[in-house]
Each structure stands twice: as structure tokens, then as C-alpha cells.
């Protein structure tokens, strides 16, 4: 049993939350962006999290011991929201279409703030788990001293 | 010293038993000037008390390891008590050995 597993898992959690924060920051910054290189208004970004077994090699995957149940978290994709953009009636806007509607991103600031607080909280929890693992490792070094 | 002869000293240190039970029978209360418990008995009792404390600490530690007893302070205190008792017994033993060696050095 090594401590590297615990440290790897916790650091994967921290990375995932950090990338989630990046997506949230991007969403908040682009809350009014009407034009993107892909065309159309900015679409809300969301990270897709997936739990992966933390195995160092194929042989490890085959072992039927509790190590196999320990999973890292991985950001597998950054998804763009498929919801329809908000249409606002602004006929004088340079981006207005033929009916006078401008397409704005469908991003709710309150939702983004709530997500941000959640990401923060989970990041803190992961840091605390990492510290607990580190303390255990250091304590083990003290055996027999 | 009841039952504590030079030949029985080694046995005393190893097993905590002396021949005081045997020798006490020969000493009747009239000519026994030492009152109270014999030294051998005190030693035996002390050794078994230390053993009891160790066993008690052991059981408490096992209960802590399985999570049955989460009273950490109780276990720590019991472990420390057993430790101190052992150290005390060791130092009494050292003193006894030193005393024995002193006696051996005496010119007859």
C-alpha cells in the first residue's frame, strides 16, 4: 500500500475542480458575447467529469483487490450547452438579424456563482483529503524513531 | 529475606517464584522477626501486577485497533502505565543485581 495512490487521486480531484473553475470563469466573462469564431453567440461551457479506476498498469486492473475500487476523476470533455440562445429584441444592434432579434448566450449569472461556490468547496475538501494523506505518510515515517 | 538465596536468585528473576512458600513453613511465627509479607511474595505480586497491566493495555489496544473502543485517552494512559511499571520493575531488578554483586565482592 503506498501513499502515492491517495495523493494521485486527491490531486486529480483538485485538477478537475480547477478546470471546472476555468469553464465557469469563461462562462461569466462571456455572458454577453454575441459573436464567436464558430458563429453565433457564445455557448455555455461545462466540464464532463468521469471516474476512472486508478490503476498503474494493465496487470493492476486484473487484480481483484480493493485497490481497483479506488478511482481518480478525469475531465473527459468540455461540453458546449445545446440550449437555444436568448433572443432579445434590439433592432438597432449591429448583430440583429432580419427580425431585429439579437442572440445572447443563455447564461444565468446566479447559476454560475452557485457552481463557483460549489467548485471552491469541493476543491477545499480535496486539499484537506490530500493533507490528511500526507500527514499519514509522515506519521508512518516516525514509527520506531 | 525469605527464600531468597543465592542459588534461587536466578529463578526468582526469571519466574518470579521463590522457595519462600517452602521455607516459610520452616520458620514459625515465634522466631520469625520479620513481620508482614515476605520479600519474595512482594516481588511475585509486583511481577504479576506488571503482567496484568501489560495484558490490560494489550486488550485495550486490540479494541482500539478494531475500532470497538474509540476512547483514545484511556488506551494511551493504560499503555503508558504498563510501560512505566515495566521500567520500574527493570530498575528494581538492576538494583537487586547490583546489590547481589556487591555482596559477592565482600571478602569472607
Amino acid at each position, binding site marked *: *500500500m503506498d*501513499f502515492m495512490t*491517495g495523493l494521485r*487521486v*486527491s490531486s*486529480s*480531484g483538485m485538477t*478537475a*475542480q480547477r478546470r*471546472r473553475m476555468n469553464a465557469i470563469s469563461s462562462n461569466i466573462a462571456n455572458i454577453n458575447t454575441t459573436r464567436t469564431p464558430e458563429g453565433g453567440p457564445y455557448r455555455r461551457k461545462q466540464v464532463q*467529469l*468521469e*471516474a476512472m479506476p*486508478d490503476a498503474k498498469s494493465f496487470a493492476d486492473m486484473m*487484480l481483484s*483487490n*480493493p*485497490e481497483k*475500487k*479506488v*478511482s*481518480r*476523476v478525469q475531465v473527459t470533455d468540455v461540453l458546449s450547452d445545446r440550449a437555444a440562445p436568448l433572443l432579445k429584441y434590439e433592432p438597432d444592434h449591429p448583430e440583429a438579424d432580419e427580425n431585429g432579434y439579437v442572440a445572447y448566450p443563455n447564461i444565468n449569472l446566479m447559476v454560475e456563482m452557485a457552481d463557483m461556490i*460549489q*467548485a471552491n*468547496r*469541493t476543491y477545499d*475538501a*480535496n486539499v*484537506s*483529503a*490530500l493533507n*490528511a*494523506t500526507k500527514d*499519514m505518510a509522515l*506519521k*508512518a515515517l*516516525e*514509527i*520506531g*524513531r | 529475606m525469605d527464600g531468597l538465596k543465592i542459588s534461587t536468585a536466578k529463578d526468582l528473576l526469571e519466574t518470579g517464584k521463590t522457595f519462600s512458600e517452602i521455607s516459610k513453613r520452616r520458620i514459625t511465627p515465634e522466631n520469625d522477626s520479620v513481620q508482614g509479607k515476605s520479600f519474595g511474595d512482594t516481588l511475585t505480586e509486583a511481577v504479576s501486577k506488571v503482567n496484568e497491566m501489560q495484558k490490560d493495555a*494489550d486488550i485495550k*489496544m*486490540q479494541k*482500539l*485497533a*478494531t*475500532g*470497538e473502543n*474509540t476512547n*483514545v485517552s484511556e*488506551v*494511551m494512559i493504560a*499503555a503508558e502505565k504498563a*510501560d512505566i511499571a*515495566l*521500567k520500574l520493575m*527493570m*530498575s528494581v531488578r*538492576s538494583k537487586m543485581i547490583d546489590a547481589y554483586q556487591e555482596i559477592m565482592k565482600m571478602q569472607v
Partner: protein
Amino acid sequence: MGTFFDKTMKALNASIQMRQMRQNIINSNIANAETPNYRAKKLDFESALSSALHREDLGKMHVGHEAHFSMGQGAIGRLQADVYDNPEINYSNDGNTVDLEKEMANQLQNSILYDAATRLINKKLASLKYAATDGGR
């Protein structure tokens, strides 16, 4: 090495190993606290260790399986932790069953008992050393 490990030291050693594994499972749960459809896991070893301690005095001749950690011979050496999905479901929209506060509380208790086991093993080893070096004479 096995002859120096009495039953208590084996129990403490097993406790230390198992709690390390439990910490890994807790880490995994916390890291996946936001992952959709992730089921929180739980590691149990207490009852297995307790019954192994009772059986330890019997059956000293068996050899442990290689996949287990070498905790010595006997019933404690064959101890295996039980990892399973936590049946206490914490309902949420995305199928995730991790209760973050519970995981933090578990982690705290695990840490404390791990520390206690480490210290006790230290104490026992120190007392063995003391007896072996004749009290420093």
C-alpha cells in the same frame, strides 16, 4: 520478524494498513464528489479484524495469499478489506451519492485512530527495544 509480533502488534499493524486503504477510498470519494452517477464507496475491516483476532490463536499454519499485504502468518495475515458501495444513499440530481460532510467526518476519525495506532506501535517497539538492550545498562 514474525516472532517479535505478538497479537496486539499484529492487530495494530493491520489497523494501520486498513486505515491507509480507507483513506484512499475516502480520497476517491471526495475527488469524485461532483462526478455524475458516481457511487460513494465504503471500506469495512473492523468486524473482520475482530474475528481474526479471536481466530488468531488457532490455525497458525496457513500461508497467506500473495495478493494480500504481508501482515504475517495466521488469521490476521489473511485479513481482507471489504470495499463496497455505501448503502446510505444521498439523493441528488445527477446520480452522485457522495455526502461530502460525512466523508470529511470519516476522514477525521480515520486519521485520529491511525495516529493512535502508530503511536501505540511505537510504544510497544520502544518497550521491546528497552527490554532487549537490558534497560540501557
